[in-house]
């Protein structure tokens, strides 16, 4: 099941890369990024970490991959990163927040809403960490 999910994460990322109009071999490298993001997310979940830690670490690893590959392939970081993070996007959280709201389960809805914003926050933190480290590196190299 582990492997199948990772393979489908690869397909998800490729589809989204096409929707965002990425071309050529970059589509493939973006797909690898998506597979890595889902693989590490599953790995950290299996280890029993809290979900915010899982999202933070998996996002940081994906951002790290994108920064390195963007240097290597002479492209911009978002070209690889945006599609690669799509498998982890908290769309489910937004949906359940809304669903509980219309079912009049206000407490569940608020819990889900908090969870979703924590996930979005940890993903943001993951990107911030890696980007800042790479900016620092770039700065000192000059």
């Amino acid at each position, binding site marked *: 099941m582990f492997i199948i999910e990772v393979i489908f994460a690869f397909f998800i990322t490729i589809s989204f890369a*096409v929707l*965002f109009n*990425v071309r050529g071999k970059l589509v493939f490298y973006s797909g690898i990024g998506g597979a890595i993001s889902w693989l590490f997310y599953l790995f950290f979940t299996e280890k029993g970490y809290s979900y915010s830690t899982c999202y933070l670490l998996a996002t940081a690893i994906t951002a790290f991959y994108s920064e390195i590959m963007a240097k290597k392939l002479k492209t*911009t970081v978002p070209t690889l990163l945006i599609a690669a993070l799509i*498998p982890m996007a908290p769309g489910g959280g937004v949906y359940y927040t809304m669903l509980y709201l219309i079912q009049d389960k206000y407490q569940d809805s608020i819990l889900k809403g908090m969870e979703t914003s924590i996930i979005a926050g940890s993903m943001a933190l993951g990107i911030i960490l890696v980007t800042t480290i790479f900016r620092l590196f770039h700065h000192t190299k000059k």
Partner: protein
Amino acid sequence: MPKKQLISEHHVLQLATFAGKIVLTSGGEVYRVEDIISRIGQNFNLKIDCFATLTCIIVSGKNANDEVVSLVERINSRSTNLDKIHQVHKLIGDIEKYSFSELKKALEDLNKVPSYGFGMNLIASALGAASFVVPFKGGANDFAAAFIAGVGVSLFSYMVSGLHLNSFFINLISGAICAFVSNLFYVSGIITNPSISIISSLMLLVPGVAFINSIRDIIAGDLVSGTSRAMEVLMIGCAIAIGAGLVTKLFFNFGGF
């Protein structure tokens, strides 16, 4: 380089702004736009100061004689075309090799390259939505429902692409389509739980580009653009939730017809 100094300032300014406009309308970060504009100016011996937001680029250049030229470019619509950002980035990477007219020609050429056709988009959004069923632990019937919802969203966005509607309305209707198709499958008894296929197809609408760019803008210090993009994310999220919620609520109340 005497050849480069022959070009008048406002031509350089226009070219730089054109390059910036391509990146901004393709969904690039604001700091990247400002960086590209000032680098093109540097290359043609013009010191350019630039302020870009999501809806407007303001540039002003100062030449050696302290004469000031300036330009304001309004941005009306933005889409996502990461290939154009990649191409401009590559062009700016070895900007030294280009003369003014060559650079202008190259930029105009890459701006004309069409994005993927409708068929490719249709396949990608159907497969993208359907593939999400696997990480959400759904079955083959959910897969089919998400596939059809993806086709519906893609068809809808193709139909309204020429109408210049606001993004709030488009996202609302797209969210409604996702919920409608999945609930229809649920009511007709093909799937046992509409949630999985709804989430899978809603993923097509999740504002990933705006989210990541807003973070990158905020880190780079562009607080105005970063926060306005974060507002965009919030607005799209609300639109999707309202659209999907409305349809689901209707199905709850008048379920089964």
